[in-house]
């Protein structure tokens, strides 16, 4: 009962969505659209579970005074502030406190975290691109050619040479052929994996996401 019903639901909806792709009829697509929207709503509603978990974990940290509990207060506090400004008595329009906090705290924090990649990509290259094996060698050489081909200096180095010997040309060629061929292969294999998995889910063979077997 606990498992059969959800599996039955999964099967019915899954098959319906599968069919929808091939049937242009309005009734079908309208129903599919509606169900897609249900999905987004379920996800939107689920955020409360996440926040609940967040509160529980940090609350326990604070109560146990386990190290870094001060920061947990910070997390809960900043969340509370956001909720206060965004709550029914607040507003989320442009210029609102809610919006300001988003634009001037969350956005810069996120884009700075993102920009850390500039540093990490360098350190990763330094330590990972070692000629340990022939394969590693290929990785290394391809990377170097493309890096040179991307910057004006690279162009500068090979100016004068016939077009098909310049680094930029080499770069584009590597990106357009070997690179693309390999990625097509990965994507095709992965696609089959996705479909097999999808089928297993619909048929209820794959059910780990519902929590193990029983």
């Amino acid at each position, binding site marked *: 009962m*606990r498992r059969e019903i959800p599996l039955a639901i*999964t099967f019915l*909806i*899954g098959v319906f969505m599968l069919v*929808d*792709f091939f049937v242009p009829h309005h*009734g079908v697509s*309208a129903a599919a659209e509606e169900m*897609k*929207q249900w999905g987004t*709503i*379920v*996800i939107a*509603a689920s*955020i*409360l*579970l996440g926040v609940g978990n967040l509160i529980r974990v940090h609350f326990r940290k604070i109560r146990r005074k386990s190290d870094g509990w001060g*920061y947990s207060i910070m997390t*809960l*506090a900043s*969340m509370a502030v*956001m*909720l206060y400004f965004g*709550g029914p008595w607040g507003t*989320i329009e442009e210029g609102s406190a*809610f919006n300001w906090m*988003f634009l001037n*705290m*969350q956005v*810069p*924090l996120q884009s*700075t*975290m*993102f920009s850390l*990649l500039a540093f990490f*990509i360098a350190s990763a*290259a330094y330590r990972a691109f070692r000629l340990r094996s022939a*394969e590693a060698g290929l*990785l290394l*050489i*391809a*990377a170097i050619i493309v890096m040179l081909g991307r910057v004006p200096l690279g162009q500068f180095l090979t100016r004068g040479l016939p077009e098909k010997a310049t680094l930029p040309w080499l*770069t584009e060629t*590597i*990106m*357009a*052929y*070997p*690179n*693309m*061929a*390999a990625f*097509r*292969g990965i994507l095709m*294999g992965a*696609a089959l994996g996705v*479909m097999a*998995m999808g089928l297993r889910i619909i048929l209820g063979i794959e059910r780990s*996401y*519902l929590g193990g077997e029983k």
Partner: protein
Amino acid sequence: MGTLIWTTIGAILTLSVYSFLYKDNPFYKFAEHLVVGISAGYYLVIYYYNFIDPNVVTPVFQLRLGDQAIGFGSGAWWLALIPGLLGLLLYTRFFPRVAWVARWSLGIYVGGYAGLGISPVMQARVIEQIGANALPLTSVTNVLIVVGLLGTLAYFFFSMKHKGILGALARVGIVFLMVGFGASFGYTVMSRISLLIGRVSFLLHDWLQVV
């Protein structure tokens, strides 16, 4: 003035994140915990206003009585009840004894999207590719693409040991994979640095205004 204050806050947070490059430290911990809290509050609010309120609360509580809306896509209030209910079912997870009920919503969601995903993937990643890769081996580039694709697929062939022809093909596949990985690694460097330049110009130009 107000902007200056906000810019300064942004700048301080930016620097706190960069301090992580030296080592984990109170400033980074502060920034990290702050952004987690803010984003949690942010998404809770945004999800409510963007999905729950317009698609569930409004239609249901207006109980659009008398309007003829029936059938899917009509936005009829009783249709809005269903996702609302599914959403509520999720919350049974807060009560261990009935937590399993949440699986119903999960089942609908996962099942629906599993079915939804299959056909487009088949279309874009397999069918279209057959058309795109049915290339006569009449030019170097065609050979490159076909050989590369064959090799990679061979590498991902699990039903036999990689020996003999299959083994050789798989080796070719690895060659292409490695070249591909190296190339796209190098190709990405530029955009990553652009991000850093963006942040630095925020600090030097928008905040300190020294350049």
